[in-house]
């Protein structure tokens, strides 16, 4: 089933934010810090204001209210007035008649700084700050942002029971989303209302941030998601430029546009956190895990962003892939003077996924078990509850594993130097179980209108290319017996559409999909009732809804009958995930109404002389629950595999002396057509009881197993361990050198730093068969803290 927005996108008609050109529109440029860490002593914009064509200049004083995506970290300013914390931090903004004038005016703004010592690594951030901490609100003398610690079940007993225990240290370097579209936003101010078009994944959260910073009620702001040129998590925060153009529109009374340059996109970032990890696992002789202790330290960059949640994500989902009877997780995020990290496809989970897959492989070899066999023995079971209370529904791990092993011939592969296969698995959430800010309202809502113009579906969901519009149209069409092309869509506009929380955490098909099913079924009931009355049929079940007909009538005739009978035809549906998290504080990050599962085998050739690794073939199986649109699911799987290959082998957001090393597309290496391997995608259907028609997510999960599978294929090919991502030729050569010298054939971090983690919150594990959620769960634990 092709996408509903195929035609506008292949003809150049889709209107992206930067394509918007309004009468009298001004152009905005933002002056950004060129120092990684400094106090702002003064900002003098007088020369800039005198430049002909400059209509407004604003600085930190004009936008003093702080914001941030998470309620606990409202630490960003649209324009910083006190200090700058990374190269790229916004300091002032200009609206002028054209971009060049605005840029020239930025150059004319004089900012006086007092330089502070930048903090550029996790290790440095853990130490006492030299001058002052990057963020004062942590009230600490070091640069630790937040720490968490949990112990589920009896860890000591678990390790005591083990026949074999192993520890490893891993590092996963940060990378960025690199969407092809540079972020862009356009604002107007008319009649006391702000309208903002933006390239965002989270129309609603941008709406909230604008309201807070501009001190306008949400009813006086309208946010519209323009056609979207790629997000991958990189457009999931409210951004400075969105607030700045709104403010400038309010000041000048003219439309204002700001499109980031590619260099600025690298600074906007919110990409993959660099994470150091330490993991210790105990297993029995036959390879059953008895206990796992996992530590992470995340390099967060200069601001909070999603970081408080990212910490949890490096720890919580370990238990929904492998059955871990006792689990301790300690996580910490530090501030550094780098562009802020946040959620990139897989948010906080690719790093531990990589670590755990390699770690188990090492354990298996040590105890003389085939690694795949060890992993399989520990797969979680469908319809069970993990030690940290996450509830697993459908789970196709076994089926996915079967598929990729069989297709790749993994078990009988010919071992030859320079060629190798690697296997790994993963799980991911189909939407976060809780909203980003606490509220009890639905996470997604859909409204339907039927009249003489046909069917129109309204939903706040933002199609970022993944095809959410197509899925909504398909669901409504399915329920109403129509074709997707018969459904008109109005999406991602806070004035005209009911809320959807946004395109993040793989939630849209699941949540907006469930809301659409409900809205469409309600509409169908109205149509069927009217037709049944006309036909004199008492049993509504007898009325068929299919192929553009409802009973004896065409859809159009049926809608006339229904409108005659009921008046205006409108229906609505909504979805809110049930409460799933366990009875302990912090149980709100990780629960999802359903988890998708993936398994992957990657084949590489690895050249021992150059260290160059080439991915030849990828076999990936994904448990999608049910594929509502197989073509779109395949697209998501292939896109995830591609992005994973980039991360596994080449992509790095790295810094040198406080500066981003490569803020350009030429130097930030990403895979091209030439690096595209042969990809074999298998969709496994497990019919999840919670998902719309049984569907689960596809946009993020398939990325996860690919990275460790690439790494393990290199291991298989060359007999070396690269305990770091990306696997660059240099690291391969270093490990080979070590091997040649008779040293451990490994490249990677040697020690995990000492982190002042707090005492763990100790949590009694649930009965693995306890699947209660929602009211039932709440009733069982009346005194537990509210799940947040």
């Amino acid at each position, binding site marked *: 089933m*092709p*996408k509903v*927005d*195929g*035609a506008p*996108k*292949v*003809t*150049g*008609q*889709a*209107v*992206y934010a*930067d*394509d918007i*050109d309004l009468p009298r529109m001004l152009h905005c440029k933002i002056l950004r810090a060129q120092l990684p860490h400094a106090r702002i002593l003064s900002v003098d914009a007088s020369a800039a204001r005198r*430049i002909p064509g400059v209509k407004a200049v604003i600085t930190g004083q004009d936008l003093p209210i702080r914001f941030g995506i998470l309620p606990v970290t409202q630490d960003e300013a649209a324009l910083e007035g006190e200090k700058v914390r990374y190269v790229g931090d916004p300091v002032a903004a200009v609206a002028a008649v054209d971009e*060049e*004038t605005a*840029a*020239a005016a930025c*150059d*004319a703004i004089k900012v006086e700084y007092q330089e502070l010592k930048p903090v550029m690594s996790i290790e440095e951030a853990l130490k006492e700050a030299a001058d002052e901490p990057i963020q004062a609100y942590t009230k600490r003398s070091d640069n630790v942002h937040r720490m968490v610690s949990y112990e589920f079940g009896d860890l000591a007993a678990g390790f005591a029971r083990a026949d074999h225990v192993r520890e490893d240290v891993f590092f996963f370097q940060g990378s960025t*989303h*690199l*969407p*092809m*579209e*540079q972020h862009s936003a356009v604002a107007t101010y008319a009649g006391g209302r702000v309208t903002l078009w933006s390239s965002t994944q989270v129309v609603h959260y941008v709406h909230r941030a604008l309201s807070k910073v501009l001190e306008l009620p949400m009813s006086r702001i309208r946010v519209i998601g323009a*056609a*979207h*040129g*790629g*997000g*991958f998590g990189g457009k999931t925060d409210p951004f400075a430029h969105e607030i700045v153009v709104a403010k400038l529109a309010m000041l000048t009374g003219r439309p204002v546009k700001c499109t980031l*340059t*590619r260099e600025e996109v690298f600074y906007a970032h919110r990409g993959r956190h660099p994470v150091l990890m330490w993991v210790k696992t105990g297993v029995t002789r036959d390879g059953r895990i008895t206990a796992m202790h996992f530590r992470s330290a995340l390099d967060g960059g200069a601001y909070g962003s999603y970081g408080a949640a990212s910490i949890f994500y490096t720890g919580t989902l370990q238990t929904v892939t492998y059955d871990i009877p006792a689990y301790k997780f300690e996580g910490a995020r530090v501030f550094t003077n780098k562009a802020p990290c946040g959620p990139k496809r897989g948010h906080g989970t690719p790093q531990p996924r990589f670590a755990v897959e390699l770690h188990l492989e090492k354990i298996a070899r040590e105890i003389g078990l085939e690694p795949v066999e060890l992993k399989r023995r520990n797969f979680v079971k469908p319809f069970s509850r993990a030690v940290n209370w996450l509830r697993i529904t459908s789970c196709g791990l076994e089926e996915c594993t079967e598929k990729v092993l069989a297709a790749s011939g993994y078990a009988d592969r010919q071992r030859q130097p320079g060629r190798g296969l690697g296997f790994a698995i993963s799980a991911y959430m189909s939407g976060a179980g809780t909203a980003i800010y606490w509220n009890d309202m639905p996470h997604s809502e859909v409204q339907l209108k039927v009249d003489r113009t046909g069917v129109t579906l309204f939903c706040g969901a933002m199609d*970022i*290319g*993944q*095809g959410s519009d197509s899925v909504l149209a398909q669901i409504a069409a399915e329920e109403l017996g129509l074709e997707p092309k018969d459904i008109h869509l109005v999406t991602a506009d806070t004035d005209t559409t009911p809320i959807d929380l946004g395109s993040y955490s793989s939630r849209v098909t699941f949540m907006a999909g469930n809301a659409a099913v409900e809205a469409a079924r309600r509409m169908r009931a109205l149509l069927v009732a009217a037709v049944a009355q006309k036909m004199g049929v008492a049993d509504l079940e007898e009325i068929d809804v299919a192929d553009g007909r409802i009973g004896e009538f065409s859809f159009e005739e049926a809608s006339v009958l229904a409108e005659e009978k009921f008046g205006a035809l409108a229906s609505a549906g909504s979805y809110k995930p049930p409460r799933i998290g366990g009875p302990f504080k912090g149980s709100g990050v990780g629960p999802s109404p359903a988890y998708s599962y993936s398994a992957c085998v990657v084949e590489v050739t690895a050249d021992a002389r150059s260290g160059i690794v080439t991915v030849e073939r990828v076999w990936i199986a994904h448990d999608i629950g049910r594929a509502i649109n197989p*073509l*779109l699911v*395949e*697209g998501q799987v*292939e*896109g*995830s*595999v*591609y*992005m994973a290959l980039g991360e596994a082998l080449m992509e790095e957001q790295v810094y040198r002396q406080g500066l981003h090393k490569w803020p*350009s*597309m*030429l130097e930030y290496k*990403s895979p*091209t*057509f*030439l690096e*595209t391997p042969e*990809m074999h995608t298998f969709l496994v259907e497990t019919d999840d009881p919670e998902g719309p028609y049984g569907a689960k997510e596809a946009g993020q999960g398939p990325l996860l197993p690919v990275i460790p599978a690439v790494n393990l294929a290199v291991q298989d090919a060359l007999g070396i361990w690269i305990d770091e991502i990306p696997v660059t030729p240099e690291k391969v050569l270093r490990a080979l050198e070590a091997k040649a010298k008779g040293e451990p054939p490994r490249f990677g971090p040697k020690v995990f730093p000492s982190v002042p983690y707090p005492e763990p919150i100790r949590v009694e594990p649930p009965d693995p068969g306890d699947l209660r959620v929602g009211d039932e769960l709440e009733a069982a634990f009346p005194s537990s803290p509210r799940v947040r």
Partner: protein
Amino acid sequence: MRSELDRPVQRELTRLRVNGEEFELYLPVHKTLLEVLREDLKLTGTKHGCELGECGTCTVLVDGEPQLSCLLLPLQAEGRELTTVEGLAEGAALHPLQVAFAELGAAQCGYCTPGILLAAKALLVRDPRPSRDGIKEALAGNLCRCTGYVKIIEAVELASQRMAEA
């Protein structure tokens, strides 16, 4: 302060032929073809990802050859035939490449799509039945972050097959 603001902007009368239409424009000489197409001619189907010649997103055809419009000056395009994505369809009838891209989901966010369509069109003119490697080679300068390239390669193959059969 930037030098271009200190002295009067030099403008030139420029004649461009885009998608078969003639335009006469009085343009600042430093403006790129990309900017002129998007801002002066309102042909916003041509996208940009870097404006530095690094991503291929802004690809247009100049006398049938794929070129990066962010690196071209309009003067360099005078007297030549320019094709943008808006010029691919014949009236309302989409080019077979456009049909195949829409059909196979080769456009996810669609942002890289105009540039890739044009590069692919040039390829199919040069080599109507390209091999997989030939397609990869021809499109290697165009980045796409959404699709993993797979559906794009398949769509070019499908279009090529259909055009051969037609």
